[in-house]
């Protein structure tokens, strides 16, 4: 079959990618990259751990799902009646994996050879679920182990404790893998229900970057994919207050130096607004406390932050927050100072020299991610669901002004709506 391909270009980067709306309902985004030796493919759905309450055309009313089911489904999808997808990939040499995030699930592989075979395996196993009571029961042991592993991880706990302090109702505060108790409720039937609801091709995307033949992708899609039914889904809207649950939360775990995560909870917009806004927020947070700022230097010289200090804008379908993390013997002091600085910036704006540094850093970050095969496929994947063009991100960074950054920050954040999470030895 021949398809209409839309070419999307970035003058700034000298790069391009192609978009195909496949008759099955799947959107396919492809970025061939000259000179590279590997291909990286991601096939996934706008379904993640936060989808815990949904209404479909069939059932007509909101149904509550066990916590951790999206992740459980991801594990089980690798199996079929004959053999696991890993065994199939073994023949092609591809390095395959999958992950479940808050608002998406992705199945992926990287390869430098036998791309045609691997892309077919990817499309095939994800579109052919096979669950039985026996195979579902068997997975509880392995996922139980995974949950325990996260329970011991200070990095993981400090983050989820923070989310619990920031969010009252938003399911983003729920652990992605669920709990040993919640996963015990999962049955084969329930997995099929979730699968049939969310793994509709209209709710999915395939992205490929690097060295590959675009025809091979389309040929595999023609061969494997069957037209999907219309997609209808309503997600329960969570009525999340702007205020946080509590400003402080701590837990004791075996760590050497106390670890902290500080979260500034933002007002959510649409998914696209969160996504595009997050680029401006990245510039804001660099101007707030990156290593060229006065406040960073003061905290560093006082010995209460060290080189582990870092920042992140955490955003998704209906949540956005600024996270600052690191190690500190006086995390309360770090929190107080950063909150003060946050207020100061909102009130007085960003000095021009500081802004230039912050903007250039963010610009450089997006520029560098465009020279990695994994970076490009991931960016295409992440931009698809909010409906944003990947190249818009670097343009937003390049076109930002101190005023636009502050205006956005003022409308989104209130420093009081924040929390500190600490892991102490």
């Amino acid at each position, binding site marked *: 079959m021949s398809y209409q391909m839309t070419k999307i270009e970035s003058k700034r*980067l000298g790069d391009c990618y192609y978009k195909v709306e496949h008759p099955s309902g799947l959107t396919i985004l492809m970025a061939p*990259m*000259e*000179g*590279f*030796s*590997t291909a990286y493919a991601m096939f996934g759905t706008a379904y993640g751990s936060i989808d815990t309450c949904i209404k479909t055309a069939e059932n007509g009313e909101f149904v509550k799902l066990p916590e951790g089911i999206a992740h459980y489904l991801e594990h089980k999808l690798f199996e079929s009646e004959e053999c*696991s997808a*890993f*065994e199939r*990939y*073994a*023949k*092609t*040499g591809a*390095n395959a994996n999958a992950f479940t995030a808050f608002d998406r699930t992705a199945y992926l592989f990287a*390869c*430098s*050879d036998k791309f045609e075979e691997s892309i077919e395996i990817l499309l095939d196993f994800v579109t052919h679920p096979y669950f039985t009571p026996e195979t579902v029961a068997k997975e509880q*042991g*392995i996922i139980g*182990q995974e949950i*325990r*592993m996260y*329970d*011991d*991880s*200070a*990095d993981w706990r400090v983050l989820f404790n923070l989310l619990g302090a920031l969010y009252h109702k938003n399911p983003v505060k729920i652990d992605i893998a669920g709990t040993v108790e919640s996963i015990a409720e999962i049955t084969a039937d329930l997995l099929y229900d979730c699968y049939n609801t969310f793994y509709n091709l209209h709710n999915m995307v395939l992205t490929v970057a690097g060295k590959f033949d675009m025809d091979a992708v389309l040929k595999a899609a023609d061969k494997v994919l069957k037209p999907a039914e219309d997609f209808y889904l309503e997600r329960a809207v969570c009525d999340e207050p702007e205020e946080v649950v509590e400003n402080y939360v701590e837990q004791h*775990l*075996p*760590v*050497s*130096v106390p*670890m902290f995560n500080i979260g500034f909870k933002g007002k959510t917009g649409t998914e696209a607004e969160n996504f595009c806004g997050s680029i401006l927020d990245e510039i804001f947070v*660099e101007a707030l406390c*990156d290593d*060229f700022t*006065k406040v*960073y*230097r003061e905290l*560093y010289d006082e*010995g209460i932050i*060290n*080189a582990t200090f870092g920042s992140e804008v955490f955003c998704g379908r209906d949540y956005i927050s600024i996270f600052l993390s690191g*190690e500190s013997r006086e995390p309360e002091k770090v929190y107080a100072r950063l909150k003060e600085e946050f207020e100061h910036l909102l009130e007085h704006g960003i000095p021009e020299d500081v802004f*230039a*540094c*912050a903007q*250039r*850093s*963010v*610009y*450089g*970050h997006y*520029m*560098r991610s*465009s*020279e990695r095969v994994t970076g490009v496929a991931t960016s295409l994947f992440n931009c698809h669901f909010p409906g944003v063009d990947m190249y818009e991100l670097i343009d937003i960074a*390049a076109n930002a002004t101190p005023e636009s950054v502050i205006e956005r920050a003022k409308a989104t954040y209130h420093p009081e709506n924040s929390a500190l999470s600490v892991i102490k030895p």
Partner: protein
Amino acid sequence: MLGTLNRKEIGKGAYMNFVNDKKFKSDRISLCLVTPLEKEKATVNALVPFVLRKGCKSCPDFTMLNKKLAEMYGAILDADVAKHGGSQIIEVSIQFTDDRFAIGGENMVETAAKLLSDIVFEPNLDENGHFPEIDLELEREYLIDTIESDLNEKRGYAIGKALGLVFENEPFGVKRYGYVDDAKAITAESLAKAWRELVKTSRIEVFFAGPGDAASAEKVFEERISALEREPIEEKETEIVAYSELKETEESMDIVQGKLVMIFRMGAPKTEHEKNSARVLSALYGGTAFSKLFMNVREKMSLCYYADSHFERSSGVLIVDCGIEFENREAAQKEIIRQLELVAEGDFTDEEFENTEGAIANSLGSVGDTLYSVEGWYMSGIVENNVVTPEEDAKAIAEITKEDVMKSAEKAKLAAVFFLKGGENA
């Protein structure tokens, strides 16, 4: 395709290495000081990159330095210490936007090369030749935190403990960041001396990868290095021990998942072929998602969430580590050993074997796709005195036979078992 490595001597015991590749948009330059790993010097040497990262004569203020980097489109300046076999490597690197993407048309390569060379060779020393007192104090504290922070990540912690058991009295056992007591004993005097000695006696390896003009960087380093007083010391190969008594130990910690680490000595490989046999063995045994350990210990028996093996070629050990429920320890340990015995007996199919070699070839095919992996690939070849291209390496891997792998598995001798279990910290 990975670009070819160009290498030449640019000073006494100093080398410029570069791989030119136009597909990238940024360049990466690393300056490495390679020195024998010695327990007495490991800690003070480990502090050197951290104080160097604080500034230099041309840019003495830490905040101004970071500002300069941010203006270079968020250039990343990293300083760290690594160990590779019997060598300690002090590495300072800078990754930055190539000239073509600099909005202001700046000459990025030369600026970055100068800055990197200033950072390593022209630090901000006072009239006594010492580093600023505040940098010494803060970075020493950070070094101590880093040494102790292995506790934060239980998987790495358990592997470190197991390696410590095996290499108690060998150079391989020296810890990457050194020791807390030694860190506390570092003075302004001893730190400055360590830096001077490193600059004078270590092998200097400059590595450039990216689309930019390597020649202009080379000129900067050649000039700077020629002005140094250099007396590189001779590097000796570290002996690899083939056998040692089994050491077993366990530790309690307030955790919910146990970590079991088993280390097998493979002995010193006499040939590259032997070394490659051990690599294929490790991949077949526990290096892929269809390996013996993954398919049996995890999938079939549900004994653990992960069970991996990897072969450390520089020290000749095979490391197996897994996360298990406390009560599964005996069963897991037994099964891990049994699976290795089965490999030695040849209990694997031609298909499993071919697929394993295919997986290794596949990952070798990706080496040229990031600046970081290009550098990592060639730098380990350079440190091991055995530079090959990934293509050559893939060919060598394809020559390994089933029998080679069985023989390799027979050589594996269990040398240490470490188990991290639950309960109160002892």
